[in-house]
């Protein structure tokens, strides 16, 4: 074995076998089940540190985000309905959705039969408050007014059957959360001054964040919309997480594909120009390919998925990985006549290995973060770099060819000239003064850096989409907020009781207009305790002997025997309360089921959804106001986490520099280590200063960009330092690397997506500076 490892040929075949194995695993096991994730939230650790609850919350937000609401509008209801039914049919026939709802079984919305049975335990908040405060006269007077009222009120039982309309009031209080949509035939409709809209709800089977889903869905939605809108006057409005997620994923993929293709072409073209043969191009491409396959395989097995961000960040490694390849190949310009790839190994091998070790050490620093997203980037980068580096070291000695016509190419002359300029700058007598000035300006610039971690700014949606969403919210009048309360307790009954206790506090907020409305299951299903309290309350007040019930019935003219029967109905009404299981299995609970999370871990949990949150801090103040009540604000959490990620990543960069410094000090000397590290450090500082002065907000993604600057900067400095006797070829190698990286990241800076743009801009500036600083600081030894 030792012999095999020691021989160039042995290493070649060993590595080839390993890589073939990897490709086989990738093709057969990884690729078919690979999942690319675009949801920024999956990169974050869970909110509650309780996996069961996190799962339940994910389940809730999935259920909400799987729903896409469409309003198909037309100049009159008939036109709108007609268009909506064609729209729904088109979506249905695509089979891309799990369920398309146009017709509603409206009776289920009312579901009176179950409630009728338990009606004496079901009181509206208003009735309950009157009776509790002893305002029975008010109660009786209202009942009489309501009976004389000409307008058709919600009165499921006849006046004689339920003179106080207890059931009607209980049911109608649930309607306020239903928004403005009202049934027209079997279709739900809304209208404004000009248009009528029919409601179509589409459910997807998968989370909208898996790319497999939106690949199919968005085109279907677009063609359904286009088809409907060919009819004059018809318009389709959409609202839902799916639309945002799909659009974001599509933009991201488009950008990555475009940038990836352009940068790949640019880099390969550059290699072709330099080495004037397709062979090095093919070799470099296979090195990059192996690195990428290894990185994706590792992420797949470690994390079970590959996040889009890891991919974006990883695609930046093209620049770093290609360095190994160009560094090796450029070595031939050291001795164009007699160069053989085998003898290049002792020259460039150590510097390539050292560069790789430093970069990997830096990226592994990200592993220390307790955040899945950064860990994934770390694994992706480290594995990709190690494999690319070993591929160069094992394959190139046998595969690389000397150029047929070793004439100094254009790029070599260019890099020589660049090196000359940098040398002159270094020798310039004002250099120290200008350098100091630059340091001062940069430090001032650093003070102006502000942070922008708001996830809405980093992953924005198109204005058309937001406008459509706003109009849907305005028409339906119940814009559901992404924030909600989580209620947990030991039993289902106590969950309901906690919700009821929360109602008082929420009602106060509604009163103060801090909140438009809220919804939870205890609105439609009071806790058993509350139901028995209600029965007790009625017994002591309205149905007490000689109480309001008999008075009112007498006043209305009910015959005495009927009055006796009604009083007996109350007295003999079931003592049992409507329980959760019976309610859940009845269609009446359908509008509420997503709010019941069921048994999670050791407890039961439910959700209180909110609509129209105007004063977030007032609502958030109820977090923990009752035992088991949590306020969940996922968007804010994501923003907060991005901020924390940023600080953590910044701290990890410092740590990475420290580790690399130690490694360098061990190999060289402390002094050399400092001068080598000065290159990426100063590039990073100046880049940040630029962001500060030019007013770009810094976020996690800038810090991640600085990680790549670190990797490349260390490479450049180490290569120049290690190959001081082959300066020309090394300068060529790092010039090629810089051009390559700037090509790829210069283009990323043009992306639509702010976080990709941040990364690109940071690298564009950072790498250019690194290149210049490396050439300035690492001068050749004087002869």
């Amino acid at each position, binding site marked *: 074995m030792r012999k095999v490892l020691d021989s160039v040929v042995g290493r070649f075949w060993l590595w080839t076998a390993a890589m073939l194995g990897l490709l086989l695993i990738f093709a057969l096991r990884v690729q078919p089940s690979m999942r690319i994730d675009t949801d920024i939230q999956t990169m974050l650790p869970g909110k509650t540190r309780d996996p069961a609850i996190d799962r339940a919350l994910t389940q809730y937000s999935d259920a909400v985000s799987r729903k896409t609401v469409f309003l198909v509008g037309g100049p009159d209801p008939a036109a709108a309905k007609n268009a909506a039914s064609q729209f729904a049919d088109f979506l249905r026939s695509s089979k891309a959705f799990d369920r398309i709802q146009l017709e509603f079984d409206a009776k289920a919305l009312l579901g009176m039969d179950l409630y009728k049975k338990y009606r004496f335990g079901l009181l509206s908040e208003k009735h309950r408050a009157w009776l509790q405060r002893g305002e029975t006269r008010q109660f009786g007077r209202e009942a009489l007014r309501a009976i004389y009222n000409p307008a058709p009120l919600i009165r499921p039982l006849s006046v*004689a059957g339920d003179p106080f309309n207890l059931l009607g009031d209980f049911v109608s209080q649930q309607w306020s959360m239903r928004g403005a949509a009202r*049934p027209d035939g*079997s279709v739900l409709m809304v209208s404004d001054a000009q248009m009528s809209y029919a409601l179509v709800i589409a459910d997807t089977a998968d989370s909208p964040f898996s790319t497999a889903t939106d690949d199919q869905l968005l085109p279907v939605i677009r063609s359904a919309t286009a088809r409907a809108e060919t009819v004059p006057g018809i318009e389709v409005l959409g609202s839902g997480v799916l639309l945002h997620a799909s659009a974001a994923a599509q933009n991201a993929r488009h950008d990555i594909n475009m940038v990836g293709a352009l940068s790949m072409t640019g880099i390969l073209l550059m290699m072709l120009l330099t080495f004037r043969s397709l062979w090095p191009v093919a070799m470099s491409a296979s090195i990059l390919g192996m690195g990428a396959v290894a990185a994706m395989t590792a992420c797949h097995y470690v994390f079970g998925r590959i996040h889009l961000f890891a991919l974006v960040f990883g695609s930046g490694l093209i620049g770093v990985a290609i360095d190994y390849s160009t560094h090796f190949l450029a070595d031939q310009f050291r001795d164009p006549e007699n160069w053989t790839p085998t003898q290049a190994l002792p020259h460039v091998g150590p510097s390539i290995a050292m560069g790789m070790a430093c970069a990997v050490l830096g990226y592994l620093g990200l592993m220390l973060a307790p955040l899945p997203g950064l860990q994934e980037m770390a694994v992706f980068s480290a594995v990709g770099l190690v494999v690319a580096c070993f591929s160069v070291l094992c394959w190139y000695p046998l595969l690389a060819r000397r150029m047929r016509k070793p004439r100094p190419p254009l790029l070599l002359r260019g890099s020589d000239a660049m090196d000359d300029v940098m040398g002159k700058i270094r020798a310039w007598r004002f250099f120290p003064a200008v350098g100091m000035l630059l340091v001062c300006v940069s430090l001032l610039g650093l003070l102006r850096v502000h942070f922008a971690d708001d996830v809405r700014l980093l992953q924005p949606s198109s204005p058309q989409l937001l406008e459509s969403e706003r109009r849907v919210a305005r028409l339906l009048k119940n814009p559901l907020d992404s924030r909600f309360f989580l209620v947990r307790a030991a039993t289902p009954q106590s969950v309901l009781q906690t919700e009821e206790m929360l109602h008082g506090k929420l009602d106060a907020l509604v009163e103060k207009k801090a909140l438009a409305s809220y919804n939870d299951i205890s609105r439609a299903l009071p806790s058993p305790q509350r139901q028995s309290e209600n029965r007790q309350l009625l017994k002591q007040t309205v149905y007490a002997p000689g109480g309001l019930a008999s008075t009112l019935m007498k006043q209305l003219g009910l015959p005495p025997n009927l009055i006796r029967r009604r009083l007996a109905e109350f007295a003999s009404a079931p003592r049992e309360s409507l329980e959760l299981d019976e309610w859940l299995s009845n269609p009446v609970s359908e509008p509420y089921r997503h709010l019941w999370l069921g048994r999670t871990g050791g407890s039961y949990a439910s959700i209180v959804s909110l609509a129209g949150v105007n004063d977030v801090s007032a609502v958030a103040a109820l977090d923990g106001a009752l035992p088991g009540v949590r306020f969940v604000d996922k968007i804010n959490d994501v923003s907060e986490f991005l901020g924390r990620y940023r600080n953590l990543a910044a701290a990890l960069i410092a740590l990475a520099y420290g580790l690399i410094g130690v490694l360098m000090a061990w190999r060289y000397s402390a002094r050399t280590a400092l001068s080598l590290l000065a290159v990426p450090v100063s590039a990073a500082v100046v880049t940040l200063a630029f962001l500060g002065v030019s007013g770009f907000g810094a976020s996690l993604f800038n810090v991640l960009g600085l990680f790549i600057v670190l990797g490349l900067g260390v490479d450049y400095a180490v290569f120049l330092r290690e190959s001081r006797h082959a300066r020309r070829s090394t300068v060529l190698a790092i010039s090629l690397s810089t051009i390559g990286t700037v090509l790829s990241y210069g283009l990323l800076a043009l992306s639509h997506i702010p976080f990709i743009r941040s990364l690109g801009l940071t690298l564009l500036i950072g790498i250019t500076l690194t290149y210049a600083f490396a050439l300035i600081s690492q001068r050749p030894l004087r002869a």
Partner: protein
Amino acid sequence: MNRPCVLPILCLLLATDPVPADDVFAHPGDVATITHLLRRSIPGAGQVEVLRGQFSQRKMLREIPTPLNSVGEFVFARNSGIWWHTQTPFDSEFILSRGGMAQRDSGIETMNVNGDQQQEFQTTSMLFFALFTLDVDTLSQTFDLYGIADHQHWQLGLRPKSAAVAALFKDALISGGENVKQVVLHEANGDSTEINLHAVRSEQTALTVAERKRFGFPE
């Protein structure tokens, strides 16, 4: 619970309708035919700005032998809403506007519901308003329309399109000549309401200052 008593009441109602004989629900129509039918008697049907008059209302309640009667005055204003002033057996003003619902008993406000928060009231108020102003377009969104007419009189029948509305509301009959004379509402629970309008004046004039105040407008 026994249902048979509904039928006699229905028969009674149909018998007292201004248009005799034929059952209106045998004559379905659409927005255009119903509007045409109404405009033969009322050229401005559905375009009334302000409607003033007096009403007498009879509530025929299931299982209760004697109807509940009430009398009062009303104003319908297209852009403001409904003011329904019951004078006997008690004094109570009921205001339904596009902005919400309010009640004043002997001049004291006892209820005020903001329409923005309570969508169902808005829907109810729009429909109720449409019944009396013969806004066929609005009615057709919630109801299937039926109509018959001779040279003097017309009758309009409304049946809910959706099961949800039908679970509460069975049907409605509106009849009249030059003006709306009678509205009969049958609830699904067996109760019904008969409203007769008298001395109805359909006018293009704006609301008086006092009327505007009733609807909650600043003076």
